[in-house]
């Protein structure tokens, strides 16, 4: 212990900077910041101290149009073409898409329809055990002719995932598996996977599988997305479909 004098005000401002306070306490801190220049200096010192936590997050490439949207909002001339995405790292075989892109969802419905057709036309593609006859064909966005992964539900309701293509993952990256079912607003991580080997996801992890459950694999920073949501480009994506009752 250094015996350094630390005032209650300094701690209050730290709590305010972190967003810990309730409305009443925050109002107290705001009043302080509004009348005391030293309080503002203290607040920015705390903000500065915590910048290292920002740098611990893997940077996320903004959408190519974001800068243009900023420039448009400011009435500035749009100065350049979209930035190059990280997709070059995997040979340009995948496309960067987001869960919320309208054009992506439209394209996906076509992909999924083709995927289902591919499966029903080739029933020996995978051994489907007795039980719920559900399958998902995960494909690289934009590559409708090649199933990337075949996903089936096993006899114990485990999810069996079988890779059909091989991809090279950069040493500083991981492939993360996500799912989203029913009305869930956000995908949920099922963990990091080895993209070269079959994967079995226990029923206890996957939970109840909805009729249109969505699965995707994204390329993330080593160890998984730092955001808790898919942040990297989608490698494979597909929706569960029921092929027979």
């Amino acid at each position: 212990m250094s015996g350094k004098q630390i005032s209650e005000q300094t701690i209050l401002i730290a709590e305010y900077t972190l967003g810990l306070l309730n409305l009443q306490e925050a109002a107290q801190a705001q009043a302080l910041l509004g009348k005391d220049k030293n309080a503002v200096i203290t607040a920015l010192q705390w903000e500065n101290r915590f910048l290292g936590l920002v740098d611990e997050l893997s940077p996320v490439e903004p959408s190519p149009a974001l800068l243009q949207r900023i420039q448009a909002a400011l009435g500035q001339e749009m100065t350049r073409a979209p930035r190059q995405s990280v997709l070059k790292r995997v040979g340009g075989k995948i496309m960067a898409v987001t869960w919320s892109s309208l054009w992506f969802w439209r394209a996906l419905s076509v992909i999924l329809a083709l995927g289902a057709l591919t499966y029903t036309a080739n029933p020996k593609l995978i051994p489907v055990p007795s039980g719920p006859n559900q399958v998902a064909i995960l494909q690289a966005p934009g590559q409708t002719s090649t199933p990337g992964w075949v996903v089936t539900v096993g006899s114990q309701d485990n999810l069996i995932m079988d890779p059909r293509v091989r991809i090279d993952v950069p040493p500083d990256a991981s492939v993360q598996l996500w799912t989203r079912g029913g009305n869930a607003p956000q995908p949920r991580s099922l963990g990091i996977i080895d993209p070269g080997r079959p994967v079995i996801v226990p029923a206890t992890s996957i939970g109840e599988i909805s009729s249109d459950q969505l699965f995707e694999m994204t390329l993330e920073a080593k160890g998984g997305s730092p955001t808790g949501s898919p942040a990297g480009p989608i490698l494979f994506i597909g929706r569960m479909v029921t092929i027979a009752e």
Partner: protein
Amino acid sequence: MVVSPFDYEGRLAACASGDQKALQELYDKEAPHMLALCIKMLSQRDDAEEVVRDIFVLVWKNAANYDPELGTARAWIYSIMRYRILNRLRQSGRPEPAEAEWIDTLPDGIPVRDDTESSRMMQRLAHLDDHQRRPILMAFYNGFTYDQIATRLAIPVAQVKTHVRSGLHVLLENEPA
């Protein structure tokens, strides 16, 4: 070395004088970091990009109000951004998935990459007791209040406050004069 020679203060001054190239340089340098934090806190990429857009607009319009005597330009930018994010979280509520996944998304350890003050601060954070460090990270990365942290950790609010405040004291006490 992570130490960047990037001159945030100079870029802000240039923005204040209408230099559009300075704004673009600031964007190139910082937007990916800002977006990462926004996504972390908001859980929604669209919302996050909207916040980043708003912040760059605000930075451009208010660059002349930045006073280097108050603090670093980068801290100033993030103070604006975090304030906006926290307001958004408080007003709109939080999507369920973020509540369910927060605990999986906190860093287990904080590596020390270099000898900058920022890095030394991370080292001090890493050396806090877990019960001190965790709520601080939950506040910073998830925007949780004391009440929300207490609920998620299933401990009394007063106990969370004690842990956080003792952690903040340790961070300052171990800071070089």
